[in-house]
């Protein structure tokens, strides 16, 4: 079992003219993990993924995927045999029928798992003889996912895989991600479904305006992020709380709310020393961490 990162980038940058879409991205994605890639629309997630797969040439910087250099044509081809990718817009051969598409794609992969393909074909209730162009958005997504899951890849890269899926489809997708991870497949996926990410991901990367703002394990985030609500006998001074770990302070008369990425104990101690009348500490969910991180940027 390899411990080397499945994705490793150094200073990866993509600019279109004077506009930098991805800026100096240094990312390391570990094997045997489910890693979520979060960001607003236009944050640079899809461009990053396309650079990793060699579909977009970086303006600056470099990287490897499964140890193969992304800029080298030969190595890139070798890498893409072992990586299954589901693109944001789920491009498929629209003139083919579902069954034909599966047969066609399977012919490229010696490790193709017909059992997985058949099982998903039934579970997704995909119409075998229907042309791809007549499928709904959700059905197209399901077909694209089937083609990726049946490939037995080492790394799954999914760009917005839950787009167009209903709640049942999303639950099924999450179960498939868990099954694939249990088989040792590394998973790197972008998503706007924060509640789902919070359930299955081991690790989270947050990208905004092309910059990596956060790269941490979810366990670490759960343990360290806290919202501390304080009440003082008189209006408190925000300056007293400008300390390590404090990301944001909101004050309203005698009340103060501190958003901390770590160091909650020291913040509580400071509040106690400043005669806080009440201290309430609450955990912070991934949604709030995401929104506050983006807002701060």
């Amino acid at each position, binding site marked *: 079992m390899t411990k080397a990162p499945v994705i490793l980038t150094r200073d990866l940058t993509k600019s279109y003219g004077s506009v930098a879409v991805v800026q100096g991205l240094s990312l390391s994605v570990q094997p045997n993990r489910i890693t979520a890639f979060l960001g607003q629309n236009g944050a640079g997630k899809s461009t990053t993924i396309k650079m990793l797969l060699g579909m977009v040439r970086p303006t600056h910087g470099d990287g490897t995927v499964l140890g193969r250099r992304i800029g080298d044509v030969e190595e890139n081809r070798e890498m893409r045999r072992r990586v299954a990718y589901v693109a944001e817009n789920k491009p498929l051969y629209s003139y083919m029928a579902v069954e034909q598409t599966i047969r066609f794609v399977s012919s490229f992969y010696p490790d193709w798992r017909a059992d997985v393909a058949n099982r998903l074909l039934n579970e997704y209730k995909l119409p075998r003889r229907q042309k791809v162009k007549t499928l709904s958005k959700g059905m197209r997504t399901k077909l694209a996912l089937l083609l990726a899951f049946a490939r037995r890849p080492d790394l799954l890269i999914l760009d917005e895989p839950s787009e167009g899926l209903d709640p049942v489809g999303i639950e099924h997708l999450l179960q498939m991600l*868990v099954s694939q*991870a249990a088989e040792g497949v590394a998973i790197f996926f972008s998503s706007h479904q924060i509640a789902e990410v919070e359930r299955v991901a081991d690790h989270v990367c947050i990208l905004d305006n092309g910059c990596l703002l956060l790269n941490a394990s979810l366990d670490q985030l759960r343990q360290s992020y806290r919202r501390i609500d304080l009440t003082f006998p008189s209006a408190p001074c925000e300056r007293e709380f400008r300390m390590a770990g404090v990301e944001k302070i909101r004050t309203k008369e005698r009340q103060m709310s501190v958003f901390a990425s770590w160091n909650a104990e020291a913040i509580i101690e400071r509040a*106690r020393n400043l005669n806080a009348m*009440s201290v309430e*500490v609450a955990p912070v969910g991934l949604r709030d961490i995401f929104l506050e991180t983006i807002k701060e940027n």
Partner: protein
Amino acid sequence: MFFKLNPTTGQPLYLQLMQQIRHAAEAGVLQDGDQLPGIRTLAEELVVSPNTIAKAYSELEHDGLLELRQGCGAFITVKRRTRCLTDHVQVARRRLRDLIEQLREEGLLDEEIKRVFEAELLYPAEIVRRR
């Protein structure tokens, strides 16, 4: 045995699972030799990363509450200390029940009692409410 993990409690999921298994063993719901589901099975059932289950099992094995047998699964190993603890926990529950009843009679609402308990366990009393 049903486990329920809550991603928004501010506690890592593997710790939640560890606590639930430990609690079940201490309460006698899980007994010596009982088998737990495999990592993949439980991960798929709870729809969480398999690493969450693997970490919880591995930590519990380290604590001596679980035995991982290659290819066979995970088995509860209730030691004498745990059995002793089971009795203590049951006594503690009875005492807490009496205390909660007394607090209710004194006019505290369940939500208020819960907050006092949580605050007292998590942070020193003088920090929580200083008048």
